[in-house]
């Protein structure tokens, strides 16, 4: 029979109780976080228990505690731009020279000749990420973003032209923030 000073005998209660303690804490966390709190919170806003649990786990989108706007109206993505290989190709094919010509026509009145804007209400575009400028223009074009002037400007241009303009402004030297 093993002696009580045998490290293995000495260790047995440690192994058992440590495992029980750590597992219990985790179990309590799972029960509270994924079952009890979501179900109770969801019930107060009319969400059934199954939906609340799925939302707490992230299997269904949305908060387990509150009805979402998307529960009543179909969701519209905040942006239609997805960086597919087709879009990446449009950006890769963009020509700053073509963009410059178009920018002279439609952009410079507000955003300035080299992308340094005419006033604080217009953002500077010089040296910004071309992909970011393209995305914003595309969002105006698709209606994901709305603006009294920009929506009409962007709707009048096709996607490759947006990419050209974005490439032109991205290529301009960054303005010093401390002139």
């Amino acid at each position, binding site marked *: 029979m093993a002696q009580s*000073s045998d*490290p*293995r005998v*000495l*260790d047995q*209660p*440690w*192994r058992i109780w*440590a*495992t029980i303690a*750590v*597992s219990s*804490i*985790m179990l*309590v*966390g*799972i029960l*509270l*976080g*994924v079952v009890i*709190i*979501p179900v109770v919170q969801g019930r107060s806003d009319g969400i059934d228990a199954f939906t609340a649990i799925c*939302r*707490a*786990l*992230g*299997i269904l989108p949305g*908060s*387990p*505690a509150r009805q979402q706007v998307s529960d009543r109206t179909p969701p519209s993505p905040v942006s239609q731009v*997805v*960086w597919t290989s087709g879009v*990446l190709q449009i950006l890769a094919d963009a020509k700053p020279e073509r963009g410059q010509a178009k920018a002279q026509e439609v952009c410079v009145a507000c955003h300035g000749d080299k992308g340094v804007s005419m006033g604080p209400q217009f953002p500077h575009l010089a040296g910004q*990420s071309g*992909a970011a400028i393209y995305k914003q223009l595309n969002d105006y074009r698709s209606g994901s973003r709305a603006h009294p002037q920009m929506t009409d400007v962007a709707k009048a241009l096709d996607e490759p032209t947006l990419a050209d303009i974005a490439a032109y402004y991205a290529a301009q030297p960054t303005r*010093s*923030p*401390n002139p």
Partner: protein
Amino acid sequence: MRNVDRLCLAHFWVAFAAFLIACFLGAWQMWVRSPLGANIGTPGQYFMSVTAHGVSMAYVLTTFFIMGFGYFVAVTSLNRPLPGKGWAWAAFWIGIVGVVMTVIPIVMGKASVLFTFYPPLTASPWFYIGLVLVVAGSWIWCVLMLVAMRDWKRENPGQPVPLAMFATVANAMLWLWTTVGVAAELVFQVIPASLGLVQTIDAGLARTLFSWTLHAIVYFWLIPAYIAFYTMVPRAAGGRLYSDTMGRLTFILFLIYSLPVGMHHLLMDPQHANGWKFIQTLLTAFVAVPTLLTIFTITASLEIAGRLRGGRGVFGWIGALPWDRPMVLATGLAFVMLGFGGFGGLINMGYGMNAMVHNTAWITAHFHLIFGGSVVIMYFAIAYEIWPRLTGREYASPAPLRLQLWLWFLGMMVMTLPWHWLGLEGQWRRVANFNYADPIIAGWGPWVIVSLVGGMVLLVSALLFVRNLAVLHRSTLPVHQPRPLYALAVHPPHRVPASLNGFGLWNVLVLVLMVLAYGYPIAQFVIDPSPSAMVHRMH
């Protein structure tokens, strides 16, 4: 000087050189963000400086200090030669090559991405490959620590591993677990993006993998301070460690509850559902257990010392402690900063309160106070304690050491407390300059200047620290009989359960917790991939 002493000193001096450079950069950053230095420098220079400051402090200072300290503990606590000394030097040089590879792109302005790896912004691949080499060097260190403990156990069957070494191996284990997250992020996502092999990147997955590393890494930095608390402070104060078992439990609990908790850094991230955030936040709260165990045990140990020195009454023992000794003084100051920083941490941990301080200066102030304050002041104390052993020379007077510790404490409090307040006022973090002409921002100005004064005091303290160590190399006072370093426990352990003498059980539990806490949150990115972000390269 023994070869192993040279090994330790080489690590420490690399760590402290990086620390000093980073202090200069930090002071410059405080200056240009203040009304006094507005309009100096460009945002590009600011973010370059913040990157260099963060990388130096968070990766170079810590990793090299912890490796050097680990070698020192392995030799002095186990009383046997370091196994694989050649490997240790190889790890050192791999780390140095890594640091050089990282610094060059930073200085060239091709890596101003800060020290956090948050795509889609990516730096030059050399920046990441360099940091991978630093981590690879530290992995060799981890293996050497494990081998040193295993060899000692073979020679001393059934004996309890000395607490300092047990804790060092706990830290090595923790580091091996910790670095898996960031290594996966770098190897599978960031480096391919940085090399131009892919044009888009799943930023949510990258942030999740980084969160795996981000909290536990803080405990990797913190554990040397706790090793000092448990094994050096009671001896320096003239007493005994109240409980050896409490020490072992503390380091085990740090190993378990620093890993499946990183999602509290993602409370505002939309990719993760409430349930997972709740579970990981609950586990985060359990980090309070080893912290409070330590406060209790070390206070009890200091009380023993104070009473042995003649302290009477409920609080009389506090005054009787030898506060003139740097290790004791640093512990007192570290506890004060840990108190304030811990309080701030509780706020960050709360889902609702975190929403208020998210991405504000509060966060920056918090991690400066808790890491730059409580942890780094203990790095100073450890360096002061072991420098005479490494150099064989004695300080002429401890007065400049005490002055340096006080300056660090005062500087850190004066810098970080107004900084916290600015965060509550809404001051953003990661912003290069502020328009103080704006009436709302103008109100922040005076507090930013107070914070800047604290930063300047810290710079003076950093210079004094390096001077204090450097003069010891030229001191003419030899150490005749080094006093014992490690504290005895009130009841020294003769036999401990295998679970408190090794890490087999705890590694299994960590694995189970990690699978439960991070399994689905990571798997969801593969099961249902979200639209990826366009990679934005700095080079």
